[in-house]
């Protein structure tokens, strides 16, 4: 049972080394100052121990030079920590373009995963090694947090909005997946595993098993079922804005401001359509809050997204059955 006594988690992502480097630096600083302070306290206590009952200490009131010294030096040390920590944070949180997208929905107490080509998983996540993977995450109910210790990544999953997490797995293996934000009774059961696979194995895994409709296809079907297409037509005659080519673009709103049509905006437009009306349109759309689940929302979003990626209009063929943005892009691409 106690055979393995690890002190550091394994490094299985491109980011893990960065995080560990700053960790080791800070451990070193901590050890240095703890030993310095502890050593000085013990040394002084022995060297200046009270030798007779009425002995008193030597009156020293202070030293401005020393005060400045131990204000300025720690300040520079913590500023190094600040700069370094912030840089690592930006690297870990700014997803590269062209990352493979996977949708994650947290609910009490499971993780539901949809791959772009239709594979679904619960409490598992299969990813290829060497390729940036971007998780777009939402929650059905309360706060959760997606945490993969071996990859050193974590992000809260927040109901009502999306949060993004990305990583590049660097070593094949099976790793822990934890929910890190307390979410109720079976919080500690909201765990699973992340399986990092060689790209070839991953392709085989994708091909095997039973794939459902891809989110794009499912989203398109929903788009028809909810009769979104009666207003959001493929031509400019619809009562709602045309959706082709919208995703990722700037959209001018009725009140003159401009927003980027990202996942968050599309989500808001479905559940709270009146919030941001596109310029030139009437606020006619009813809310779909409560009518579509978080997973269906993600499917609708991926469908709207697909309309931009291929320049396709509603009604055209759904996205290709395999990975939509597959391009074999190297894993290190950033910024």
């Amino acid at each position: 049972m106690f055979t393995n006594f690890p002190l550091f988690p394994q490094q299985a992502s491109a980011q893990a080394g960065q995080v560990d480097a700053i960790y080791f630096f800070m451990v070193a600083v901590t050890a240095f100052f703890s030993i310095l302070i502890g050593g000085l306290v013990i040394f002084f206590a022995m060297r200046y121990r009270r030798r007779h009952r009425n002995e008193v200490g030597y009156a020293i009131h202070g030293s401005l030079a020393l005060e400045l010294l131990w204000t300025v030096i720690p300040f520079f040390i913590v500023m190094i920590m600040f700069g370094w920590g912030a840089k690592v944070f930006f690297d870990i949180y700014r997803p590269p373009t062209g990352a493979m997208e996977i949708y994650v929905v947290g609910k009490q107490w499971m993780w539901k995963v949809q791959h772009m080509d239709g594979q679904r998983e619960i409490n598992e996540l299969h990813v290829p090694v060497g390729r940036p993977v971007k998780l777009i995450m939402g929650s059905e109910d309360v706060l959760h947090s997606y945490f993969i210790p071996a990859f050193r990544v974590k992000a809260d999953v927040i109901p009502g909005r999306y949060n993004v997490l990305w990583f590049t797995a660097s070593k094949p293996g099976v790793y822990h997946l934890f929910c890190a934000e307390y979410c109720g009774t079976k919080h500690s059961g909201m765990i699973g595993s992340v399986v990092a696979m060689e790209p070839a194995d991953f392709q085989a895994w994708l091909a095997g098993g039973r794939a459902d409709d891809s989110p794009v296809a499912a989203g398109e079907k929903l788009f028809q079922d909810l009769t979104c297409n009666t207003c959001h037509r493929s031509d400019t005659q619809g009562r709602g804005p045309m959706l082709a080519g919208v995703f990722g673009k700037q959209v001018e709103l009725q009140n003159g401001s401009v927003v980027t049509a990202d996942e968050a905006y599309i989500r808001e437009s479905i559940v709270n359509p009146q919030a941001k009306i596109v310029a030139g349109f009437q606020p006619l759309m009813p809310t779909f809050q409560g009518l579509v689940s978080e997973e269906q929302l993600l499917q609708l979003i991926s469908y709207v997204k697909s309309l931009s990626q291929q320049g396709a209009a509603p009604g055209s063929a759904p996205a290709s059955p395999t990975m939509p943005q597959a391009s074999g892009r190297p894993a290190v691409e950033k910024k």
Partner: protein
Amino acid sequence: MSEGYSDAPTVGLPGRVSIQGPGTPHDGDSHAHHPKLQHHFDDMEQQAEASTLGMWVFLVTEIMFFGGLFLAYAVYRSQYPTGFQEASAHLNVTLGAFNTAVLIFSSLTMAFAVRAAQTGEKPRSQIIWIVLTMILGATFLVVKYFEYKDKFTHHTVPGPSFVWDGQYPAAAEIFYSLYFCMTGLHALHMIIGLGIMTWLAIMAKKGTFNSTYYTPVEVSGLYWHFVDIVWIFLFPLLYLIGRHYHAG
């Protein structure tokens, strides 16, 4: 065994002396105490300063207490600007403005009540100002009651029975949640204020307050003015943001 510090100079703070000297312990102080001086204060000035300072510190906590609500208001208003305007347009601006005037008037009468005690006017005139303030405060609450009642009949009270036929039901519900929390807490402060003033009036009737002792009136006045200030912000933020709002 239990040496007093005066006869133990080696243990005492170096150089510390007691200029009052032995034989003047506090309880047996020879010169006459003000009847309202509490035993642990040296004199009435220290007591009065402590009380007003205490009230000011308390008001700082009140600022932060209401501040949390104002923060929530600021965040949601920035997120739902039009929704808040639409919701605000349903409030009765006439009643709101009337209540603002009533409250400002009550601040004036309160200031005069403090002044009456400060200048040692007769209890009768102190009571008149206090009671006048109470009447105005009560007027405010009565108007508020009718406003609340109106919300209940129109189902604009947040909760399961909330009904909103405008364009922004979600934003309107948050607006009304904040409306009820803010005005409700404000009204609660008014009610507490009325309680304090009832007590003040009784004390004044007994002739307690004069130019040497009016701290209770003064600190109650501070409290009352603070409640007025909260309303000075609540009125425009809640009632007036939707006045130039046109649906559509």
